[in-house]
């Protein structure tokens, strides 16, 4: 029933002399929400960014190990990084909409990727807005500047924008950390719908959120994977003492 989407094998990541990840092995399942938790600086973002090779752009980046998506090594020379990033979408902690209209934000990537037909572009806009349940809020103001939206709407629009290029996997780095509770719960609801079509990895500092939204949880500490299991298991009966301490706030 459940299939492995991403296989991370013995991954170590370095930035110059700093080791951000140390021999991490992990299998991510398709159409599930997998949560990465751990104290600040433990390597969550580095792990996410390894998956769409955004780390490549950081000066001094090196890695060991393998990452396979659908059994294809994404660090293989044959792989076109730009192409990979279309299939592995990413949403950032701070919304980073372009200073353009809502519509232009959404058709930005499809247009550059060669879709010229206006109807098709409008279809994409409507589809991704529906998927992120933001359509009713923006349909009458598509030509307004995206920066006029509320913070929560902006973040959901970022998710919608990530969907415009038809990714297979969605990486989210603390997508709701700067949002109010109402906007946060809207994003959480979204994830339940989205995981039917996408494999989702999400970083969060909010343990309740992790428990609520994810199917699997990975606990990282100092660049190492401490524990990885079903979320229900991790939150009710962690195998590792460290994990338990972190979850109960006795950490540090």
């Amino acid at each position: 029933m459940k299939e492995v989407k991403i296989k991370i094998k013995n991954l170590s990541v370095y930035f110059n002399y700093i080791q951000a990840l140390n021999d991490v092995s992990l299998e991510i399942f398709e159409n599930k929400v997998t949560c990465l938790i751990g104290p600040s600086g433990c390597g969550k973002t580095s792990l996410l960014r390894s998956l769409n090779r955004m780390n490549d752009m950081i000066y001094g980046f090196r890695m060991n190990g393998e990452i396979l998506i659908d059994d294809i090594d994404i660090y293989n020379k044959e792989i076109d990084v730009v192409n990979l990033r279309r299939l592995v979408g990413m949403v950032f902690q701070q919304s980073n909409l372009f200073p353009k209209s809502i519509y232009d934000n959404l058709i930005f990537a499809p247009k550059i990727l060669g879709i010229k037909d206006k109807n098709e572009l409008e279809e994409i806009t409507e589809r991704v807005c529906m998927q992120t349940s933001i359509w009713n809020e923006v349909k009458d103001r598509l030509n307004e500047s995206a920066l006029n939206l509320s913070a929560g709407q902006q973040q959901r629009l970022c998710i919608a924008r990530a969907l415009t290029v038809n990714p297979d996997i969605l990486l989210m780095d603390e997508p709701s950390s700067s949002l109010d509770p109402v906007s946060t719960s809207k994003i959480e609801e979204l994830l339940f719908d989205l995981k039917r079509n996408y494999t989702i990895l999400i970083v969060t500092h909010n343990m309740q959120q992790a428990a609520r939204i994810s199917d699997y949880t990975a606990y990282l500490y100092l660049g190492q994977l401490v524990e990885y299991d079903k979320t229900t298991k991790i939150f009710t009966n962690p195998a590792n003492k460290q994990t338990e301490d972190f979850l109960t706030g006795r950490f540090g």
Partner: protein
Amino acid sequence: MKKYHSSYAKKRTFKSALVEKTVKYFFFLNGMISVLFLLLIILFLFKEAISAISGIGIAEFFKNVQWYPTSDAPRYSIIPLLYGTLLTAIPATIISSFLGIILGVYLSEIASGRTREIIKPFIEIFAGLPTVVIGFLILAVGSTFFQELFNTGTRLNALLAAFGLSIILIPTISSLTEDALRAVPDNLRMASYSLGINKFSTIRNVVIPAAISGVSAGIILGFGRAIGETMIVLMASGNAAELTLNLLHSVRTITATIAGELGEVAYGSPHYYSLFFIGTFLLIITFVINLISELIIARMRKKLKKMN
């Protein structure tokens, strides 16, 4: 005892307050010297320009399309000078915008940290090169080279001056472009890359549009400099006050006219006042151009604040 103390303190504070006030006033007066000289420049030029208008007549400056101030029937039309100014400044702005923006993009988006640390100071130092040096090199090397290349009739012409101007404009435009591009928050680039957009498309569709006001301010500022620059055009343009749109003809700019004629003009003559008239004209143009570019930069700052 107590009484003595308080009156002593009072005296002291009164005295030091006086000192502080005097000090402040002193610095204020120094600050006002810039205001004073700006006003003096404006008043003085306008005063002489008005003398020109009352002596020669405003119409004379804009009709007849000839500048022959020393002939028996003197002609004082600013039009050929304006043609000459634009015929050198516009091509120079186009060339230097093209190369300056590319260089700015390279420095901000492509060059590695170390390369940038070498090239940037080099460009900055180069930008301090006296313009007379560029003018000299054009005369010594450029003109012959150019004549052979384009097979032009005149050794000195508008296009040659435009090339010379470009050399001093490129550093200005490239550094303003670089500043504008660097002010674009990195998360916009990340957004584009994470959507699977490649570097060039990101630069073209995200970074440059977000910085467009800064870049255009740089271009406008460069244009202003091109119009106001004297030595290069004086030495390279050929200085024939011809009404032409041909880039390969000699032209005469407003600045070169002032530089070339002020030394020989009789004080108080119509010719003298006419030079102040075209100087005032130049002052107004450059003032407006600088104002526009400043407004654009101010607007950009506002917009960037909103993005962060």
